[in-house]
């Protein structure tokens, strides 16, 4: 992934040098081609700024926002109107317009980001269309005839009037700065949160990522850049008319972003350049081929190119660049060093790690006593904390008439492991979802550390110290293992978009802290070797461990594990049991859904049995094992084998033959 590459020092420098060289040589080679001029260079730089916003919001955040023409227009008309009516200096006009565009984007974003992706696309396209009609109709914007722009941008005696080379260089500088801004944003805590939201909003939420916040951040940054582009454009054309801000601008920007690669900041200028050159060539040479108005070809040309790129090269030019960079990089750089501070963090974490206890596989997998939040709940405290870490009272959940949960209660104390069992459809995962906020309970109360968190969204519940894993492994597949776990540690740092963009000390500090935390969490599950790999490429069992590490990285008080042993080998399951025990000894409270009875009964202090949404009982493991009702509903008898864990327990020796010992004798 480009993001891994971007973390090597030479990648951003090389990218910047390449794009800078491309930009600043344009006045030389463009006229030489015959069908291009420096004006096309201005188009490239301005559209680069527009397409960056698209890549930030669509590529990195997965949100289809099709209102580019609106913010572009705000920048252009803002500059013109402020100069005309208020006599404002054009630089000030640019700044005010950008602020207005940012504020408008935040407002609209908060309103519409509650919608899902493709609906969002149409809504924002409608916003863009409305903006065009307003530009075209309103008297403030000069209606159909447009509005003339006041004095040109100037620094001292240097005037950047449109059409001159100096103006082109101003645009190129602005585009380069925008690229750096976008790149810095993407390679940061904020950027990881963005990509996490894109990959899996539910999992990002349980890591404490407020999806709406980060979507709005990306949208605002994109809008500010697009607005500045609009102001430059206004300065360039002199007269701002509505026809420059049609929906087609948005679609063209979308095309440019797709050609450049939606996941590649560095690909953007090249995508824009490719489209501009294509369009100019079509207009210059089209008439020679077919004798009709050449401009008629651009629309169909755009459509064809858009489709072809999506079908043949979905990653755009950026993916080609990535591949090249990786080829160069593999000869230069140890893949283990590909991430910020990985090796440093590893040595720090290793020095902090306790002696460790050998796990079944002989790996020192367990380190004790490192939790930041452990001070209040250390093992040293003798009497059990009277305050339950997690308390669920009569949680009930209906789905359109179906009662998935009916009055389930649970109490979890520090250092305790509660097992949650029951047949498929018993409501175990729904119960977890109610606890973690992914599903709103219809009634009942959930308290974390005494605070009522019922019905709060997942990211807010995560702030109260709850972390979870998912039954179907919800990792962020395109992100590296380390990045996945760093997202898990999201709440351990505070650096925001501004410090990421400006690379303030806070950013570097937080990156270091997060990498340390993440590396430490990976060590606990014995996965630190795989830190640079893309999470989606790992085998199933390792993905489970990464997911557990991601939950641990949040340093939670309460950990919900949804079938953590599913798909693990016997020895891996044994390691898991030891890990869970070690975590409990550090005063975590753990609730665990598990079908592997052997693992569960080994580790659980108490077991709660659910059946059809009802709570059959909560008791010690031995009692549960012997309870006739539980046996009938779940554990089963030797002739009524419904337990997942016992599925392979055919007569005769098998690795799981111990499971048979959990079948009570002589019941039913």
């Amino acid at each position, binding site marked *: 992934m480009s993001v891994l590459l971007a973390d090597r020092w030479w990648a951003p420098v090389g990218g910047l040098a390449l794009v800078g060289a491309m930009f600043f040589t344009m006045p030389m080679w463009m006229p030489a081609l015959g069908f291009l001029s420096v004006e096309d260079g201005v188009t490239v730089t301005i559209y680069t700024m527009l397409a960056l916003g698209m890549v930030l919001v669509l590529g990195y955040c997965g949100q289809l926002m099709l209102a580019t023409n609106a913010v572009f227009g705000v920048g252009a008309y803002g500059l013109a109107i402020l100069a005309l009516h208020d006599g404002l200096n054009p630089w000030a006009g640019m700044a005010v317009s950008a602020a207005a565009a940012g504020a408008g984007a935040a407002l609209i974003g908060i309103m519409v980001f509650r919608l899902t992706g493709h609906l969002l696309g149409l809504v924002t396209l409608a916003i863009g269309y409305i903006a065009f009609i307003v530009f075209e109709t309103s008297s403030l914007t000069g209606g159909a005839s447009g509005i003339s722009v006041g004095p040109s941008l100037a620094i001292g005696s240097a005037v950047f009037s449109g059409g001159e080379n100096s103006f082109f260089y101003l645009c190129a500088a602005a585009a380069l700065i925008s690229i750096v801004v976008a790149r810095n944003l993407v390679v940061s805590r904020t950027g990881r949160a963005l990509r996490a939201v894109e990959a899996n909003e539910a999992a990002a939420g349980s890591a404490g990522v407020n999806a709406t916040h980060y979507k709005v951040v990306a949208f605002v940054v994109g809008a500010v850049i697009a607005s500045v582009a609009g102001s430059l454009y206004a300065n360039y054309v002199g007269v701002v008319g509505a*026809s420059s801000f049609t929906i087609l601008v948005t679609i063209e920007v979308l095309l440019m972003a797709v050609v450049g690669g939606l996941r590649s900041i560095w690909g953007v200028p090249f995508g824009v350049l490719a489209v501009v050159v294509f369009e100019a060539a079509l207009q210059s040479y089209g008439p020679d081929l077919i004798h009709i108005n050449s401009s*008629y070809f651009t629309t169909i040309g755009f459509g064809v190119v858009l489709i072809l790129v*999506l079908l043949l090269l979905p990653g755009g030019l950026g993916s080609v660049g990535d591949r090249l960079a990786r080829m160069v990089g593999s000869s230069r750089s140890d893949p283990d060093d590909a991430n910020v501070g990985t090796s440093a963090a590893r040595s720090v974490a290793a020095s902090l790690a306790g002696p460790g206890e050998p796990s079944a596989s002989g790996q020192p997998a367990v380190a004790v006593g490192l939790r930041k939040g452990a001070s209040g709940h250390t093992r040293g405290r003798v009497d059990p904390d009277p305050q339950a870490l997690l308390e669920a009272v009569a949680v009930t959940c209906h789905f359109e008439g179906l009662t998935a949960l009916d009055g389930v209660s649970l109490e979890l104390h520090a250092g305790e492991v509660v097992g949650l069992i029951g047949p498929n459809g018993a409501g175990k995962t729904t119960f977890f979802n109610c606890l973690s906020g992914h599903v709103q309970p219809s009634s009942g109360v959930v308290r974390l550390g005494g605070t009522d968190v019922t019905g709060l969204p997942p990211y807010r519940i995560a702030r109260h110290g709850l972390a979870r894993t998912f039954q179907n492994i919800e990792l962020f597949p395109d992100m590296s293992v380390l990045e996945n776990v760093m997202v898990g540690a999201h709440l351990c740092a505070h650096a925001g978009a501004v410090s990421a963009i400006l690379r303030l000390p806070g950013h570097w500090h937080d990156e270091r802290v997060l990498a340390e935390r993440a590396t430490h969490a990976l060590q606990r599950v014995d996965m630190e070797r795989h830190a640079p790999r893309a999470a989606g490429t790992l085998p199933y069992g390792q993905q489970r461990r990464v997911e557990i590490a991601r939950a641990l990285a949040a340093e939670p008080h309460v950990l919900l594990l949804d079938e953590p042993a599913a798909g693990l080998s016997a020895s891996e399951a044994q390691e898991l049991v030891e890990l869970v025990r070690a975590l409990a000894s550090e005063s975590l409270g753990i609730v665990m859904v598990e079908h592997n009875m052997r693992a569960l009964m080994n580790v659980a202090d108490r077991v709660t049995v659910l059946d059809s949404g009802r709570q059959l009982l909560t008791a010690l493991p031995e009692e549960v094992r012997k309870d006739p009702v539980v046996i009938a509903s779940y554990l089963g008898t030797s002739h009524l084998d419904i337990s997942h864990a016992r599925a392979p327990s055919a007569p005769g020796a098998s690795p799981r033959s111990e499971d048979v010992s959990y079948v009570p004798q002589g019941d039913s």
Partner: protein
Amino acid sequence: MVFLREDRDEHTAHRSASGRALVWAPMMDWMPTFFATGIGQLPETLVSGIVNGCIYALAAVSLLVVYNVTGVINFAVGDFLMAGAMLTLLFAGPNGDPHRLPLALAVLLAVVIVTALGGLLELLVIHPRRRYGTIFLLILTIGISSVLEGGALIPTGSLTYGLRPFTSGPALSVAGVLIPRQDFWIVGSTLIVMGLLWYGATRTRIGKALRACEVNPTAARLVGIRVDRYWTIAFALGALLAAFAGAILVPVTYATYNMGIPITLKAFVAWILGGAESPLGAVAGGVGFGVLEAVVLGYSPASVANYGDAVPLLLLIVALVIRRRGLTRQMAVTRV
């Protein structure tokens, strides 16, 4: 008729960034006669709204059919409608050219061609990437939209075209309300098409299979329905509905190559207003939106009505912010 706002030539407008000459489409004085209606003309306003609403309803059902079966929002629905209108014009000849095909044959031919085009484009463009996410597929349909729009632009050259009504003659008076003859065609044929659609969906094998695909693709596959094939059928059916809407619409509005996107947006509004779930809802949403649009624009002061499409589209955003049930079905929550 408040149907389309005549925009300036959009496809060349953006070129101004590189300093090329702007090509302005013939600016039609397009203040619809509708805006002139007085307060006393409520019945005419309502009829006009219902007629427009029928077109929105057909386009909304087209969106619905494609979405329910494939999960894709077909951004090109308005362009399929445009293609239907343009082909009808091509075959029938604008305004009574005697040398062309008879009207019924022209409509039939246009609808058949666009239907085939819809299926073909699905096979060529959507099919290879159908495992990708809905946003990816939506962007692909934006590409299809550009291809259709650009494909229409080359022969029509951004001019506007009109067609004679299906039956000529003065407007008919119903209970004192003057109703143009084409309005009867639009409302009547919409009813017939919806009836046929209902019959097809509930009584035929293909219809039942389509509905099976939309309710549960996995189960449909298990019982031997080739779900992939129904993606193609859904796109073709969607194109058919849109093309038919275009064919019956073209006598009451002007057709241009770029009429599609505003219609797509309005069909989308109708679909959302109708709850985004059932065809009946989409029809109700379409007619409701048509009437709402007509009344709002008809009775707004000129300073507001001048904003034309912007007014009803603003309603879209309001509707979406208020009414989110039915839209959030696929939110992350259900994935967990």
